[in-house]
């Protein structure tokens, strides 16, 4: 009899836990994540230190200045180090992403889906993203990631134009922050694992101060991005122009 009661209690508790998981408003979580990672009324700037470990090329370090204006869908990435790449720039203006090469002094059209400078970060990783618009949840669960209680959310793209058709997010409960993301191909093969171990709160936004992207296909390939000198100061309109990149090289 005691065993039956214990089993019933266990079933009731599990059902209650399941019900609570099912009641999680995933859309609200996704909207919050989007809101926390965008800057609709201010500009954003930071210095990024990018370290790439490649089993074939060894360890490479880059320093990049990063300017972003979400309200106009613009960003500018200016490579400062290494010396050989100094002056190279990426300018996003709406749907168009331009790459500037100071050697040829030419701008060429490039894609947000390309990897940034041979690292494991995509050019799209630096622009404002929207989980709520581009994805829908197919499952949500609760679990642990290290010491953190997290929601484990599986997402499927709502359109066929996002780089990763399937995502799996580990989102801390309070505050809601993406701690880990797994990005899958159309054939549902793991392509990349992203870790966001450290955030910094600036105004209403949470900015990942450290990001680790691991290539799931190329053994041993990993990129770590660390942000410093973070600022939400208003930038001049001239920053997001081609002539600014050209001038920066003089």
């Amino acid at each position, binding site marked *: 009899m005691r065993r039956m009661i214990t089993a019933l209690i266990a079933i009731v508790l599990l059902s209650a836990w399941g019900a609570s998981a099912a009641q999680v408003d995933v859309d609200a979580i996704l909207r919050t994540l989007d809101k926390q990672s965008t800057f609709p009324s201010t500009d954003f700037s930071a210095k990024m230190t990018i370290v790439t470990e490649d089993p074939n090329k060894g360890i490479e370090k880059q320093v990049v200045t990063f300017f972003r204006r979400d309200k106009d869908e613009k960003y500018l990435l200016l490579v400062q180090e290494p010396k050989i790449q100094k002056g190279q720039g990426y300018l996003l203006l709406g749907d168009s992403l331009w790459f500037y090469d100071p050697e040829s002094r030419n701008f060429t059209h490039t894609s947000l889906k390309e990897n940034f400078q041979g690292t494991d970060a995509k050019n799209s990783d630096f622009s404002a993203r929207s989980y709520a618009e581009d994805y829908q949840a197919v499952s949500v669960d609760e679990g642990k990631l290290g010491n953190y209680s997290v929601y484990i959310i599986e997402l499927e793209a709502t359109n*066929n134009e996002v780089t990763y058709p399937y995502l799996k997010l580990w989102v801390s409960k309070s505050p809601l922050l993406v701690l880990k993301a797994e990005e899958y191909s159309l*054939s549902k093969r793991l392509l990349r694992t992203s870790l966001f171990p450290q955030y910094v709160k600036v105004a209403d936004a949470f900015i990942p101060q450290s990001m680790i992207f691991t290539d799931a296909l190329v053994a041993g390939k990993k990129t770590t991005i660390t942000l410093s000198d973070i600022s939400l100061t208003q930038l001049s309109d001239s920053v997001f122009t081609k002539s600014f990149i050209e001038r920066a090289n003089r």
Partner: protein
Amino acid sequence: MITTLRIAFRNTRRQRKRSFLLSGAIAFGIVVITLVNAFTAGMIENIKANFVYLFGGHVFITGTELSPSGRVISLIGDDALVKEALALVEGSYSHVNRRSQTVVEFIFGSKTNTFTLEGVDWESETQLPTRLQVLAGSLDNLQDPQALVLPEQAADKLGVVVGETVLARLETVSGQLNIGEFQVVAIVKDQTNFGISSSYGSIVYLNELLGLPPDGYQTLQVFLRDINTMDQVSDILYEHFANHAEVNRRLNLNFEARTEDEREDYVREQREAIAALLGGYTELEEPWQGTKFAVTTLNDIMSPVVSMIDVLSMVALVVFIILLIITMVGITNTFRMILIERTQEIGTMRAFGMQRGGVRNIFLLEAVIIGLMGVAAGFVAAGVIMLVLSSVTFTEVSVLQFFLKNGHFTFKIALSDILTNIAILLIMTLIAAWMPARAAAKLPPAEALRAAY
């Protein structure tokens, strides 16, 4: 006339050293122009052959369509219209291939290599396996959708051997990342010798990875029976597509816009066409229905290269003419000296009844004989140099491979070029000898006989 010819020939033999030097100068010019002409003609032929291998055909039909979201994707959806167009040029082509292709990052362990992957319908494309030179594995199991044929260079870079599985990272036509798994069934020799051969897999599997229908394709490669009909066939195909569907402007790499608007239109269209080929995104200005066709030929693609080679040929011709002018000045001077040396002889010949025309003809024929001797010597020397150069194998210089055939320079001598050069040379030689010949003919016989040089 035979007597005149005999005297002219005897005269050239009388002063062999002088004749030899004059012929030598002419021969040098002939060597230069023959080598350059034969080299450029051979180079054009080699580039054409390499382009045929590289692009797989003589005429290429590509198509772009709009996805429901308005994105431009590379796909020929209207195969019926393609068949109709091909029926118009039936007999002009030997076969056609329907292909899909994309740039793929192959991954094996920690090694990666980016290569073009061609999706091939192995059942219909029976010529390709016969053309591939297998270094390892076999082409017997090509019907397996995941079978992959890798060029030697890619296999070496990945460190992969036959039987192993490689991953392929690529983008679908709509821009999503996708991963395919292929099994290497054969490693083949680089067909082009310049390291940009493609890898080959099943078109059905590649279409699945690209997000295209199983029977879809992106490019139709047309192999012509006669390469000279390339422009004619492409014009017929283009006209048919233009009459029944949307078309892109013909590719013209030498296009020069007359106005800024024309230039902008052209740049936009070409960007659209290139993005279609590479599966990229373009800003859409005017939407269209169905397939938008583009027709490109090997001549279109090669036109800048051919223009460059034409310039090289022109420079060689100018150098040849300058060399000839210098030589002709020499010939004029030599014949003026000959005139002085032979004044008494001319007087004697005139006294024996030779007419003025006869004297003039001896001089002119002598110049022609020297010219022809130079031509003959020049051709022999050029032939020897070509033989030596074509026997040298260039395997290490990959940049040169594009201009070579199996690692060798090839020389193609066109009869029209030879005849043109001989004609130019003879005309200039005659012009050079004309003044002294006329002066010799005008000498009064009595004064000539009295001359004491």
